[in-house]
């Protein structure tokens, strides 16, 4: 009764499931190849550095988003949290870069915890809870720092501009965080439980998982990661700009996660896929910029890629 019967149907299904899992890698490869062939100066290390530095904050934010989506949620507040952490970090620079960063991270974690609590304890739907935060937290950030504010703190500037062993620190941080999140998802109890919650919340609750605590933690992690991204973006910009920093970041992050093959219906987290999704969107926009094509093209191509990704990933909802 429980054996799998080998049927020919599987071949098409296999291809689909392969595409679903690795399509984004393929797309990145194709785009790289195109650039190597047709874009001058593409192979220079400086170019790769630029691309990686630019994508780093998106990757970091998307990691948190992937976890939230794994629990069948979504975190629309990430962009506003970036703005908030940016505002907070420059406000507290008087106490030194270290304490300022800690306070900014705490602010991100706090917003995330608040959102998570709304979802887990109050029962507000994730999209609404974090929509409210998207609106409200941007307001708070604007009140804290009403207009772009520059800073000269050398440590914070160093953070955004230094390299370790040729690798920009910002990129190294994104890579390290990717590794940590991948490890958490695959090998820790928290990671396992998180996807279980996303797959079947009722069953997880009855199985004795601390569902509410897991949910709150996941949003807190997402908030913290968004704060990391906000701090890094601020340090690279050498200024805090809460009015525009992180605008539409929620869409970029969701796009990276979805293009990376994580289903919005929860129960699965593809960490590397997410990173690839972010890279794909970055490469795409860089390619179009390098070939001097207007922004409206980028928008249209992005739309097509998002659709292609979900078409490939559609799998279970025919």
């Amino acid at each position, binding site marked *: 009764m429980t054996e799998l019967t080998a049927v020919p149907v599987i071949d098409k299904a296999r291809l689909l499931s392969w595409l679903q899992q690795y399509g984004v890698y393929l797309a990145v490869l194709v785009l790289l190849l195109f650039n190597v062939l047709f874009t001058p100066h593409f192979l220079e290390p400086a170019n790769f550095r630029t691309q990686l530095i630019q994508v780093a904050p998106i990757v970091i934010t998307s990691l948190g988003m992937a976890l939230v989506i794994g629990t069948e949620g979504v975190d629309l507040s990430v962009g506003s949290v970036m703005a908030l952490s940016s505002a907070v970090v420059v406000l507290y620079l008087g106490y030194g870069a270290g304490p300022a960063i800690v306070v900014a991270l705490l602010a991100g974690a706090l917003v995330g915890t608040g959102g998570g609590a709304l979802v887990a304890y109050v029962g507000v739907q994730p999209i609404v809870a974090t929509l409210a935060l998207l609106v409200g937290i941007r307001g708070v950030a604007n009140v804290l720092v009403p207009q*772009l504010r520059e800073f000269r703190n050398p440590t914070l500037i160093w953070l955004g501009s230094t390299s370790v062993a040729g690798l920009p620190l910002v990129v190294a941080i994104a890579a390290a965080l990717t590794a940590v999140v991948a490890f958490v998802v695959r090998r820790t109890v928290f990671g396992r439980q998180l996807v279980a919650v996303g797959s079947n919340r009722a069953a997880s609750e009855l199985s004795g998982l601390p569902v509410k605590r897991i949910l709150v933690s996941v949003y807190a992690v997402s908030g913290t990661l968004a704060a990391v991204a906000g701090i890094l973006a601020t340090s690279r910009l050498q200024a805090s700009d809460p009015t525009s920093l992180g605008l539409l970041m929620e869409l970029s992050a969701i796009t990276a996660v979805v293009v990376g093959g994580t289903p919005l219906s929860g129960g699965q987290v593809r960490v590397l896929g997410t990173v690839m999704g972010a890279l794909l969107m970055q490469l795409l926009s860089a390619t179009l910029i390098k070939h001097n094509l207007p922004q409206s093209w980028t928008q249209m191509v992005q739309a097509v890629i998002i659709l292609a990704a979900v078409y490939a990933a559609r799998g279970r909802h025919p």
Partner: protein
Amino acid sequence: ESTASGPEPAAGDGRQVASTPSAAGPACTLEKFGGQPFDLTKDMVGFSQSEKEANPFRIAETKSIKDEARKLGVGNLRVTNAQSQFSKQISDVQQLIAQGAKLLVIAPLNSDGWEPVLAQAKQKKIPIVTIDRKINAEPCTDFLTFIGSDFYEQGRRAADQMIAALGGKGEVAILLGAPGNNVTTDRTKGFKDRVAEKAPGIRITFEQTGEFTREKGQQVTEQLIQSRPGTNGIYAENDEMALGAVTALKGAGKSPGDVKMVSIDGTRAAVQAIVDGWLHAVVESNPRFGPLAFETARKFAGGQEIPANVVISDREYTKENAQSSLGQAY
């Protein structure tokens, strides 16, 4: 550092006139800057636009750069647009540097936060000409020079026009630009400072953002007309918001001149509105940077001295000159 006021004798095509001849400020030369001479016809030139080309100012600005480049035979011009996102503009310029641009013309979205880019450009000795907005950095060391208007001064001149229109007393509302933007800050401060200085009889009773767009300008003005019927003057920090306000005034059954309006930019539609009597005056913010920018670059590459600031002389459009200057508005 700045400039004359009052209507300028306009050049026939509305092209920019530098109000500061090379005398003002410490001058810069290729030698002092430490760069390589470049050839505009062969080397890559990058232009980074800050906002979407959806309003006349940005359109005219980009067009002027492109037209002039074509005219001069610039072989490899790259144009990027940051879509009003500062971090994107930083990325754009970094991309241009990575691609090997030898000259950068930047219309910055903001004055601050350019250090990472400047450091990279400096390393490669790439001269940067910023246009329309200043950046806070050292000319001739961090970048080459700035060409553009003085927004604070624009605000002051708008105030002068408003004071004249109202005879020095009344209630004035301000349609602010996008929040957090330093053009907004400067135009607001210039206006308020001048009003406080010259016309204590004018009270500023209302300040709301119209985000530099026509629709928001219209909506906010509709609320304004309704809740503060005593308002005598509206200062709009750009023409688009002013035109939105005109639509709102029309909708409320007002006649031209009922509410005195002053705005900044000098788009054709706004100058037409002066002719029609809706606007009292428009302080120009000339977007045609192409000729002056390339001229400056050419002089620089040729070893000539370049001033630290090339402040252009903005005109003013009023009832007197609007009809005749319509052709020069952008």
